[in-house]
């Protein structure tokens, strides 16, 4: 069940209802983009992992576009998604990429599972899971396997060619020498772990380490990321015993190995590959 609103460039949410479930496409392409993106996200979770919406109980998916003015952001507020139009100089609309839509909806999924605390390592894990499931939702929509995917999140948001927001394949390279943003600061290894107190301990920074582990494991296993490694990550994400709200990177690593062992066996290639991937990023 999807409802898409326009905040009409104000801050009050949700705003004016433009399109509800089953409604005709709107004249507003941003409305249609998030309507379709939410549908693709729901389909992804349901068809692959049997999950019925954000809360696994059919929760209505509420989204608002045109949030505030020149707003260079998208967010999940605990109940709904909101997307800005961008300032038109550095950023375009935050509805432009399905992986961004999938990322924000996955924050909702996490809230109803382990509800990872949004700070330090648990917060970076929260961010990483949102990026990982966001990228898989894009891959599935575009039928991309581990080799044909760019592994770039937000490829169409920064105005200009050759800029994305984050790279799971090569953290630190999503944007390079941008005149306003500089260079992507994400590390790909624990040696680059940085506590940024202004970003809740570096949640958007250190997620690069976990993102890269997922990429390495998926690439080595091959095929479609969501089939094996993605399934392990989903099961780990939903294991509240092994992944509590204050889970560390090490907790999540152990959870993925346990889940992979359960699914495929301790000596299976998938489990070995996941172990190696964690080792490669310093965990």
């Amino acid at each position, binding site marked *: 069940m999807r409802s898409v609103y326009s905040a009409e460039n104000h801050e009050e949410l949700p705003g004016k209802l433009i399109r509800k479930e089953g409604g005709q496409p709107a004249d507003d392409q941003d409305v249609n983009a998030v309507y379709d993106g939410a549908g693709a996200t729901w389909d992804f979770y349901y068809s692959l992992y049997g999950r019925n919406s954000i809360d696994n109980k059919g929760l209505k998916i509420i989204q608002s576009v045109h949030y505030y003015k020149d707003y260079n952001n*998208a967010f999940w507020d605990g109940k709904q998604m909101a997307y800005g139009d961008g300032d038109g100089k550095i950023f375009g609309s935050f509805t432009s990429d399905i992986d961004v839509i999938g990322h924000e909806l996955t924050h909702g999924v996490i809230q109803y599972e382990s509800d990872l605390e949004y700070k330090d390592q648990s917060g970076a894990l929260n961010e990483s899971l949102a990026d990982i499931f966001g990228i898989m939702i894009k891959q599935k929509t575009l039928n991309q396997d581990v080799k044909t995917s760019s592994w770039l999140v937000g490829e169409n948001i920064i105005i200009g060619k050759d800029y994305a927001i984050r790279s799971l394949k090569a953290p630190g390279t999503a944007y390079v020498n941008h005149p306003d943003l500089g260079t992507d600061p994400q590390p790909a290894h624990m040696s680059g772990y940085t506590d940024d107190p202004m970003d809740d301990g570096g949640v958007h920074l250190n997620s690069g380490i976990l993102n890269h582990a997922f990429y390495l494991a998926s690439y080595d296993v091959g095929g479609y990321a969501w089939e094996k490694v993605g399934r392990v990550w989903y099961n780990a994400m939903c294991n509240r015993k092994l992944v509590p709200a204050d889970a560390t990177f090490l907790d999540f690593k152990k959870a993925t190995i346990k889940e992979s062992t359960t699914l495929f066996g301790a000596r299976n290639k998938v489990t070995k590959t996941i172990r190696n991937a964690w080792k490669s990023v310093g965990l």
Partner: protein
Amino acid sequence: MKIRLIQSGGFIGKSKFAEEDLSGYPKQLHTDLDEHIAAFHDRAIPAKKQPGRDTYNYFLEYNGTRMPVDENMFSAPEFSAILALLKTKLHY
């Protein structure tokens, strides 16, 4: 005395900054800021748990202190004008 607003977090995770020289501003604003900082240090201002993900965080730097800015401070009559001005000047 300068005041600095920092906008951090968000989906991109990049911080923006804005500064304003308060030397020409009314003395009352300085007094109000000093009192707010004292309350912050005394933990009289409780930290709010944010349910939002990828929302912006705002911080104010003034007189050697960096403290979080929440919605209440943005709408407080004594601070709303200066904070609104700083918001318009935010840059990477």
